[in-house]
């Protein structure tokens, strides 16, 4: 958080605002062997695929190298009238001669007639064409193999992170903002996909192509090759410099675009306020200013692009000019042939793109390193609660069927310093409904968190049906509960799936649960009934309807114990009556713990626990507690209404 200095003018302020947007994903990390090694392990299940694609890459590189050689053979062979048969001394030449022999062609010499030469041309073109077809096939298969490998690894990694997060305790989710965790399973994993699909293996492919071409150049004419290759380091340097600046500018653009988007979004959402306050002009001016900073960032980055492409072009023509002059001199002197001249020319055009790719791959590697570090950071933190060594099996759950809850001298603190609950003891009898009341921060929600074992108490014990909840597996413990939280979570799935919530429940059960909470009218209102997809956060539903859906969700599982954190948000009186009615039906015949905010709910409870600063201060029925004229009586006056 940077505090704004008073003398900042408006433009500076905008720059400040630009600062923090999406910075995280733009951080780089230098190559680390440790991280790379760990990433490579994810390739292990696919090692056959990787091996296959390596072999295919080698084949395809070799095939790419052969094409230009054939052109050279053609130019120095059948197309040349000045040279003799000694030209066919190369490997390719020898192979071709053998092949030619099989189709009944003689080797070329000065006296060969046109018929022979034409036959040779057809032969060479035919070879080249078949190589092309092979190459098309190999390249396609190779790309697909790599792509499937990369995508599979990405998927594995995503699932590993997601599954790992499912096991984390509630405190983990308190520490880590949801948005950041979502980035781990989406953007960070995607960054690694780039690395797996086009990084590791095609890096090898590029290196192979470069080595192959350089080797061929030297093999053909070492002297000429060493002169021509002088420019290649320059290409690498130019590309590296360009990438560095382009990346810097790209980030700047991203940052400013994010800022512009945030501003646009905000202006659209707040349009009514803007219009009623007559601030249209000021808003538009500010928009134009932020928009202007984005334009400047774009214009700055054009410079580097405009500089880079011509530079590489100039370097490649310099290499070409070298071939023309040096090659020309050698052809003149008879130490080189026209075929070699063409060979150099063709190879050079094919050398530049893998060279440029190399710099690109390095950037890819850097952002992938940063992403993988963040992902491994998540995988290396494990805050899941300990499972018992001896799991109480299903038979023993019958003991717990009584559903009696006992808190015994429970103390707890979230940060290890400030106690939230102190020596809390109470019992809830089987089938009893208790209401927990108290001011904000009194520790009401913490009781729920401990009861469901989102955290374990620092001292004391919680038991259900005389059995410590830590002696049971988390799953069998939590399966007893139906939970309804304040913030109602309507998910973007169908209405039916929102109530089913991934459990194994049939439709009858869902319809029944909706009927029980008097929520059937919600279904009737939807075009597709139960199949109606819900918007994110249930935007199309009223707050009362959202509440009823979460009730139905809890009820559908037929829980033994109901835990309800009542919503505080204000709903109109009729909806409130509807909700109250639903709560009455929910608690019937179940042990229920309700963190209550409405007087009507509180009064209907069998017993009321009054929490104050982490301690249980009063306990009893409504009238009893009002008569006590203590904290509860004050709460009733303050919170539940006014006289």
């Amino acid at each position: 958080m940077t505090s704004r200095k008073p003398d900042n003018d408006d433009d500076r302020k905008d720059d400040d605002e630009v600062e923090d947007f999406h910075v995280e994903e733009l951080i780089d990390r230098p190559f680390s062997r440790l991280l790379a090694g760990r990433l490579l392990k994810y390739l292990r299940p696919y090692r056959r695929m990787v091996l296959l694609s390596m072999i295919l890459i080698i084949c395809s590189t070799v095939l790419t190298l052969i094409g230009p050689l054939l052109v050279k053979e053609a130019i120095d062979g059948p197309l040349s009238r000045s040279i003799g048969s000694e030209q066919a001394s190369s490997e390719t030449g020898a192979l071709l001669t053998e092949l030619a022999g099989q189709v009944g062609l003689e080797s070329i010499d000065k006296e060969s007639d046109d018929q022979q030469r034409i036959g040779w041309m057809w032969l060479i073109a035919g070879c080249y064409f078949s190589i092309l077809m092979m190459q098309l096939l190999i390249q396609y298969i190779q790309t697909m193999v790599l792509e499937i490998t990369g995508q599979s690894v990405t998927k594995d990694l995503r699932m590993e992170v997601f599954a790992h997060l499912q096991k984390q305790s509630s405190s983990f989710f308190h520490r880590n903002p949801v948005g950041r965790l979502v980035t781990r399973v989406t953007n960070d994993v995607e960054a690694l996909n780039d690395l797996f699909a086009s990084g590791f293996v095609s890096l090898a492919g590029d290196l192979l192509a470069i080595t192959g071409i350089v080797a061929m150049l030297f093999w053909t004419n070492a002297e000429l090759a060493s002169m021509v290759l002088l420019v290649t380091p320059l290409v690498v340097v130019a590309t590296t410099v360009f990438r560095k600046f382009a990346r810097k500018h790209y980030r700047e653009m991203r940052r400013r675009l994010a800022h512009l988007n945030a501003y646009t979004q905000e202006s659209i959402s707040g349009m009514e306020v803007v219009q009623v306050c007559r601030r249209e002009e000021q808003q538009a001016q500010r928009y134009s200013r932020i928009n202007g900073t984005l334009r400047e960032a774009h214009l700055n980055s054009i410079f580097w692009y405009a500089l880079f492409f011509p530079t590489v072009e100039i370097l490649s023509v310099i290499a070409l000019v070298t071939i023309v002059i040096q090659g020309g001199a050698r052809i003149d002197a008879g130490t080189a042939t026209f075929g070699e001249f063409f060979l150099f020319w063709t190879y050079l055009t094919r050398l530049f793109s893998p060279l440029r790719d190399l710099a690109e791959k390095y950037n890819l590697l850097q952002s992938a390193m940063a992403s993988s570090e963040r992902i491994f950071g998540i995988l290396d933190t494990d805050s899941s609660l300990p499972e018992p060594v001896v799991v109480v099996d299903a038979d023993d759950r019958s003991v717990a069927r009584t559903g009696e809850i006992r808190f015994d001298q429970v103390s707890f603190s979230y940060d290890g310093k400030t106690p939230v609950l102190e020596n809390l003891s109470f019992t809830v009898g089987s089938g009893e409904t208790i209401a927990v009341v108290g001011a904000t921060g009194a520790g009401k929600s913490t009781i729920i968190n401990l009861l469901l074992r989102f955290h374990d108490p620092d001292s004391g014990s919680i038991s259900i049906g005389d059995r410590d909840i830590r002696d049971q597996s988390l799953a069998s413990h939590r399966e007893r509960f139906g939970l309804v939280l304040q913030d109602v979570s309507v998910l973007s799935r169908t209405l039916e799936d929102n109530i089913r919530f991934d459990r194994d429940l049939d439709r009858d059960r869902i319809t029944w649960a909706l009927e029980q909470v008097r929520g059937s009218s919600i279904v009737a209102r939807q075009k597709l009934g139960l199949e109606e997809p819900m918007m994110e956060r249930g935007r199309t539903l009223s707050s009362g309807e959202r509440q009823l859906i979460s009730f139905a969700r809890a009820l559908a599982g037929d829980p033994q114990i109901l835990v309800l954190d009542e919503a505080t948000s204000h709903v109109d009186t009729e909806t409130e009556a509807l909700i109250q009615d639903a709560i009455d039906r929910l608690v019937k015949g179940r042990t229920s713990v309700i963190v209550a905010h409405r007087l009507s709910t509180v009064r209907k409870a069998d017993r009321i626990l009054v929490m104050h600063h982490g301690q249980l201060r009063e306990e009893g029925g409504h009238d009893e507690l009002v008569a006590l004229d203590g904290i509860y009586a004050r709460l009733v006056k303050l919170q539940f209404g006014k006289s």
Partner: protein
Amino acid sequence: MLAAGVLLILVTSICQVAVPRLIGVAVERMETGVGLDLVIPVAMAMLGAVLIRGVTSFWARKTVIGSSRRIEKRLRDRMFQHIEQLDGSFHAKLHTGDLMSRFNSDVEAVRMVFGPAIMYSVQTVFILIFTVTLMLQIDWQLTLWSLFPLALITMTVRFIGPLIHNRSMRGQEMLADISVHAQENFANSPVVKAFVVEDAEIDRMNRLSHTYFQQNIRIAQLRAFTGSAFSLFGDLALVTLLLVGGLRILSGELTLGEFATFNGCQLLLIWPMIALGWVMNLFHRGAASAERIQAILDATPAVDDSKARPEHQIRVGGISFDQVCFRYPEAEEPTLEQISFDLPGGQTLGVVGATASGKTTLLNLIPRLSPTDSGNIFIDQVPIEHYSLDSLRGSIAMVPQEPFLFSATIADNISFGVDHASMDEIVEVSRLVRMHDEIGKFPDRYDQRVGERGITLSGGQKQRIAIARAILQRPQILILDDVLSAVDSETETTILEGLRKWTQDLTALIVTHRLSAITHADEILVIDEGRIVERGNHRDLLDKKGRYHKLWRRQTVEGELEDLE
């Protein structure tokens, strides 16, 4: 600007085509064996050509792409200014997300037309003209043979490009699904744990990941095909040249130098031929986007100053509704029917009714956030259309149901509606809404940023800041739409009492669910399904023992206690 760009591209293209031509000349000279002395000038000419080309293409890019960025900026500015003029019905029809994609992907698509599409299409046309002329001068049949495989490249891009684009868009949607699932799962982790559905949630993620995986493979197939096709067709051009050109060399119709020229031209043409297909797609996409943008720019504001007369100014702020009806564009039922009432200046009107009974809609009509369908609204006996929007909205301050704060400082948020506000004034209104002490506890006090990058305020704090913003405008008419729902009733009472003192000759409209807030109102309207069902002051309404009375009893503790007996 454009002419300069085209000229620069022209020079660039000439220099580009010069290189293969010069290589041809060089090879011819080598072939005839006239010696190195004649080759070196040709090489130097090549170097010269590429240097000139470097300079011109640098400027061409800066000119064309630069102007496209300027056009982009102007277009966005214009769109922004335009949507600011549009009324609520426009914003209700178009989701924020859709509007955002007009500002982003659609503007970008149009920008691509003015930038890269123009640059590369001009360049491609020039290069095609020059190379084809050059090649035709040498041998027209060989020209056709050489161009054929290259044309296949253009076709590949033209027809597979849009497929890749569509599949990628679909892929992005799938990634968004994954993101939504993760987001919902993490945000609701207590519920997920309590229902013990972690494994089912993992399964769901697995399914989503798998569809995304399959889509990516489908995209990869197309990419792999185009990638292989480019190198195939490029090499195919070489094979064709080798065979057809070779045979012509043998028959003496072609020299090796001319062969080299052809080879150079082919190498030169590969990228422009790819660009040609790409550019066609850009134009196609750009046209669709331009249409969508035009639709926004063509939307006419339903509320404007066409009937306004400058002499009208709001003085007292008396409001009358006469038979006002309103229906949302796509709704079947009208939201407001035959609403009539008279609110003399300086008085307070309370409005109550169930959720979605039309209260908010009624309030929105007064500052003309939406136009009425029929009936008239008068302020000081003058139809509201006769005031300019500036003078009408300048006299009204409105606090919407969902308080909206900008991600700026608290002081900026409070002073949003006025041109200049002194710190004293800001503090004064903050005191009035009982926020001053709380603001004092923030690390940066009034300079504390809120929202996206600042602190998160509670619902009640947001509501009070929104009220402070409204009263700082010192309006004649104050409209409060259920603005203190998240504040406890004691604070609410204090704030409302403070407001009453501050706003003695101010006309106020207060919508609320909490009846205690409007017991002092001069008149109260009870609205149900868009109609006024009861009206009168608090006492009258209680005596009527109707709907208002029922609501009142439910809301008071006494009422509840009576129910018990």
